[in-house]
């Protein structure tokens, strides 16, 4: 399928004899595939196979025994039916939606604001911007554990600080009302660096003279932002939001370590539920876990299609 570079060069030389324009186009396309070869092999080997296995897991009735011996009977969509009729399903979907929308909104807004702030290039801005990425270096078990410690009902520093203002003890991780809020806060904290870096990069790509012209025309900060900066950053924003969405849907470690999806499934999302079914108890239920995982992938697919639609419309304009 993928031709070698030598092959395409030889082919292109032959092509020029046929028709200069046609040859160049063919050359370009085949060459394109050549550069794509590593990624394509990569995709097939590393993504297609696990995905196939996951779909297969969700369509069979796996017990621990048949998982090991590999001869589980095919049961079609029964696992999915079981998942849909489980009382945890609707709460998990709702929590996933709330968690994702809240996380992305705050991460994006705060990340954007910080990117604009750091764009002013004041003293120490480069160092401070680098320091903002430190939350990212930490293994998730450490960040999640640190937040757990800070949000502990009795010995957490957040409750002490709130207590100093007269706020009564908030059971961040152990109350069904607050558990989702607690994990959202931790997730926002972890997601800000990602948004900051990409949006900042995008801001850097705006040519300085565009902003100069705006300033010369007398446009103030907010006007410049609304009519120039934000529209110019629309494609970057779109990709940041989409990737943020995909990554947030996958978030599992933070919630699992902080609340295990509880208490009483009050912070269970589709991602944590999938893990819980598969690995969360002493007796794994792989079929259902895979089914929930596939549902997640389908949701992401749907939004991915929306993004492609948006891109197509944008390019058509």
């Amino acid at each position: 399928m993928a031709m070698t570079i030598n092959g395409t060069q030889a082919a292109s030389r032959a092509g020029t004899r046929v028709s200069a324009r046609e040859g160049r186009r063919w050359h370009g396309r085949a060459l394109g595939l050549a550069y794509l070869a590593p990624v394509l092999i990569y995709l097939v080997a590393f993504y297609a196979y696990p995905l196939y296995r996951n779909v297969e897991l969700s369509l069979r009735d796996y017990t621990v025994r048949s998982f090991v011996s590999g001869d589980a009977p095919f049961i079609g969509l029964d696992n999915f039916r079981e998942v849909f009729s489980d009382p945890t399903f609707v709460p998990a979907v709702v929590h996933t939606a709330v968690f994702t929308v809240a996380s992305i909104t705050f991460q994006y807004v705060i990340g954007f604001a910080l990117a604009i702030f750091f764009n002013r290039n004041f003293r120490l801005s480069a160092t401070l911007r680098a320091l903002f990425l430190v939350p990212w270096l930490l293994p998730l078990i450490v960040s999640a554990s640190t937040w757990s410690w800070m949000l502990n009902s009795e010995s957490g520093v957040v409750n002490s600080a709130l207590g100093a203002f007269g706020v009564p003890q908030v059971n961040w991780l152990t109350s069904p009302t607050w558990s989702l809020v607690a994990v959202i806060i931790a997730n926002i904290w972890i997601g800000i660096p990602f948004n900051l870096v990409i949006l900042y990069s995008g801001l850097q790509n705006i040519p300085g003279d565009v902003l100069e012209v705006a300033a010369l025309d007398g446009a103030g900060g907010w006007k410049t932002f609304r009519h120039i900066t934000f529209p110019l950053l629309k494609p970057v924003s779109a990709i940041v939001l989409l990737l943020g969405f995909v990554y947030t849907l996958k978030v599992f470690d933070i919630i699992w370590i902080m609340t295990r999806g509880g208490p009483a499934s009050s912070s269970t999302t589709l991602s944590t539920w999938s893990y819980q079914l598969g690995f969360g108890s002493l007796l794994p239920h792989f079929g259902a876990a895979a089914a929930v995982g596939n549902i997640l992938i389908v949701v992401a697919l749907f939004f991915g299609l929306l993004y492609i639609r948006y891109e197509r419309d944008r390019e058509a304009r």
Partner: protein
Amino acid sequence: MFHTRLRPLGLTVASLAVACTVAGCSTSDAGSDSSASGGDKQYTFWDPYPQFDESSDWAKLVASCGDSAGVSIKRTAYDTSDLTNKTLLAAQQGAAPDIIDIDNPVISTLADAGVLASADDLGLDTSPFAENITAAGVLDGKTYGVPIGANTLALYYNADLLADAGVDPASVTDWDSLNAALAKVKTAGATGITFSGIGTEEGSFQFLPWFWGAGADLKELDSADAVSAVQLWVDWLDKGYAPNSVLNNTQTTAWQEFEAGKVGFVENGTWQMGNAAKLGFKYGVISIPAKDGGAAPAPTGGEFVAAPVQKDTDRYEATTKIINCLTSPDNLLTTDTTLSYIAPITSVQQQQVAKDPSLEPWVTAVDDAKGRTSDNLGTDYPIISEQMWGAFQSAMSGSASAESAMTTAQEAAAAKVK
């Protein structure tokens, strides 16, 4: 121009070289596995003790047992909650280790999956081991592995704090007297009791003494006795005898709360004995009271040594030798002292008490303890346990009443149990 383009590349290569040197200088130190010197055949050994590296006594014992069986052992340590899944995954791919040391309630799951060889297949003699401890590894009349040690739960108390509050620990003999003691501690301005009520097997482990102490049975989660056990915990939270953090506490963090010195009682296990000696106050241990008096049956913790099925059954000979070596009375004494476990063999238990008389109440507790997967609950136990912890979490967090939570749990468990 040539230089500028090569510079980032050069930088990367240089960094890789540095990294290689730093990592390479200590290849032998990295990783928590060890290779013994003797023997040509290599046997793989998995255990849940990542805190023991290759310089530890445990690692050396494993290696020496390998040597005495004529093989070299490659040991890998995993996080205990991960080990089951790793074993299943490996077994699926035909790469199961030769020997595993794993938490006892999981043995029946692995046996049911056909992953483990039975003691009969291996020619392993299980008679020296205490029956109540070995029972956890029995499925359908066959034993799959032998215990390496047992631990169980009791109530540690802060002697100084109780004295100040006017509580006599000897008076705590049933639930009523315990509640009275907790009330007194609260009046004195401290927290009554702390424990681990987290939504994992650890929470179930801590709940079982109260559950069994109320006379409840795991096959009937919605009985009045079972509900009363959940209600006990809920009342403690409502009355402020226990801190809210119990919903998320592991046994370690519950212990840390106790260590801070403002808690009267903590439910914890034998493995804390070493830490107990370092407490900044006087402490004591009493058995967990049953509802109507007497000591409540506590669950057995501790690991089993088992052998996954291998295609080449000739390997079993050395495997059996290694297991026998690890669980020989002399080696058990050393191992169980290191792990702060009680030995599963009576003669060794007596030796442990002779060395350290403070172990006496623990030995009694272990003798009275029950396996979680005993009574042929086997693979039903994990299903029931998951529903049970969901129920007490719901009740304690106020999402449901104790009764409705347990009813839901029983329905779900009954539906999922085969």
